């Protein structure tokens, strides 16, 4: 990608992060940590990789995205809003009573959400079914699923991996957000899923490990995914939980907690400064 294109993606990722802060602050709840860690991949998928149309969110031949780690919906809602699926101004209604922006993604209420998720381990199976259906019906659309590194402790994830490889779903790409933290602490201490790459390879995935905050690396990984034939693809991305909000970075406490007034102000100041720097 060109440097200006990369700069534009970085600017968008920064705006996605601001939406994460706006929505979790507005909700006084939600999951900022894992939303911020995935801001680049959300941005890359919705602004570069996926074949989608915000004006026609149910377009039959669109690529599909399943947020298997459904709790990081502030990130998904923010990228969808920034991509034009619905107004960015609605983000602060997140989790409010009668808002369409439910606490976890709802495919029947939010334009652009391809599957209702929230219960960990299920989204990847649903996405596997979508990819199998696309193959079966001769469609060329691709299917993406984003998983948490804690989420892969769910046994169902590996049932899905087995099935994706068994059915040679080369139209299927999973992304594991390896930010290293889950609610109770470090994933290696709680219940280690490591080695993640080796496990995915053993389950039949073509797998790469990338810096999840580096758009060049993400582009190379997604390009490789599209060129891989005969097997599903996995991108294990090393990320920083809470990325770009200094006091949230690498702190498991920010998994599922909203910023208070002072924290909101500080987070937005930091992100606005970052945005100004990028736009300079």
């Amino acid at each position, binding site marked *: 990608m060109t440097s200006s294109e990369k700069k534009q993606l970085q600017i968008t990722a920064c705006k996605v992060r601001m939406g994460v802060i706006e929505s979790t602050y507005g909700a006084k709840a939600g999951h900022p940590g894992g939303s911020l860690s995935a801001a680049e991949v959300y941005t890359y998928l919705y602004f570069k990789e996926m074949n989608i149309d915000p004006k026609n969110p149910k377009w*039959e031949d669109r690529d*599909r995205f*399943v947020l298997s780690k459904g709790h990081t919906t502030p990130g998904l809602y923010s990228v969808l809003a920034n991509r034009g699926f619905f107004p960015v101004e609605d983000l602060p209604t997140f989790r409010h009573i009668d808002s369409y922006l439910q606490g976890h993604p*709802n*495919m*029947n209420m939010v334009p652009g959400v*391809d*599957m*209702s998720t*929230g*219960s960990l*381990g*299920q*989204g990847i*199976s*649903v*996405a*596997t*079914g*979508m*990819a*199998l*259906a*696309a193959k*079966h*019906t001769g*469609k060329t659309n691709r299917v993406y699923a984003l998983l948490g590194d804690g989420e892969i402790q769910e*046994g*169902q994830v590996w*049932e*899905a991996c*087995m*099935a994706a490889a*068994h*059915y040679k779903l080369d139209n299927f790409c999973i992304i594991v957000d390896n930010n290293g933290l889950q609610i109770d602490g470090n994933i290696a201490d709680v219940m280690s899923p490591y080695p993640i790459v080796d496990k995915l390879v053993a389950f039949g995935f073509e797998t790469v490990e990338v810096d999840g905050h580096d758009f060049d690396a993400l582009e190379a990984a997604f390009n490789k995914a599209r060129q891989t034939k005969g097997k599903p693809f996995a991108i294990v991305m090393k990320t920083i939980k809470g990325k770009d909000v200094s006091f949230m970075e690498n702190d498991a406490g920010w998994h599922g907690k909203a910023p208070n007034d002072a924290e909101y102000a500080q987070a937005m100041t930091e992100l606005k400064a970052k945005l100004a720097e990028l736009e300079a």
Partner: protein
Amino acid sequence: MAEIKKVATRESYGNALKALGAEFDNLVVLDADLAGATKTGTFKKAFPERHFDCGIAEANMICMAAGMSTAGLVPFASSFAMFAAGRAFEQVRNSIGYPHLNVKIGATHGGISVGEDGASHQCCEDFALMRSIPGMVVMSPADDVEAQAMVRAAYLHQGPVYMRFGRAAVPVIHEEGMKFEIGKGEVLKEGTDVAIIANGLMVNEALVAAEELKEDGINAMVINMATIKPLDEELVLAAAKKCGKVITCEEHSVIGGLGEAVCAVLAEKCPTPVKRIGVNDEFGHSGPAAALLKQFGLCSENVVKVAKEFCK
């Protein structure tokens, strides 16, 4: 006496899938290493490219079916009732029920008539589990003819459906070509003294019981309530008003199934004395199906006994 034709409704399920598969290209079948037992193998033989074995991984199968339905396919996900409704309950609830996806769950080997396999495989809780999910249609056919008609109705219905089929062969009581409508009960015998509302293999037992009760001067009404949800409340209320007494019969726990569904309607809208025949909050065990059904009171003899005491 002419031999009564007996067919296991799991056979009906497989045959119906095959027939519908010839008619509808978007019908696909998912299975969890039980194609032989659930009889989806009948479909697989005819349409191998539309049969997807998911291996022994029911949770994943249920969610894959959900994903396939979002692409316009109509998946029938099949396993034993214990695993489809029990093991994968939360997957059914969150990935099919909550988004209200067009997935059909064909669960065979429901109830204690599973027989020799014993309690681990005798699911008597599936109606309760599936009924609790908003928007889920829950059904259990009485015989081969109704089962086949039900599978067709399930395909044509837009939204999630749970169907329970049996392992054991049961008498065919319906005429070919019966009309089946989701949510409509069927009066098989009119009566005035007690209304017996049954489903599954208990429908035939209720009919046999009603004949025997005639000799005791008891005129029992018999209703086949194949759809447990949405319940045909109108028919339940009409039967209760007419007979003043209701007996429910099901091859399911007395907790959470047809009996409780009927009680709930009557308690709120037409308080009526009810006796529930079902599995009385206990696990099953190994044995031949027929012997187990007798032992657990899921037989015409027990229906007669309960009705006679009730109508004293």
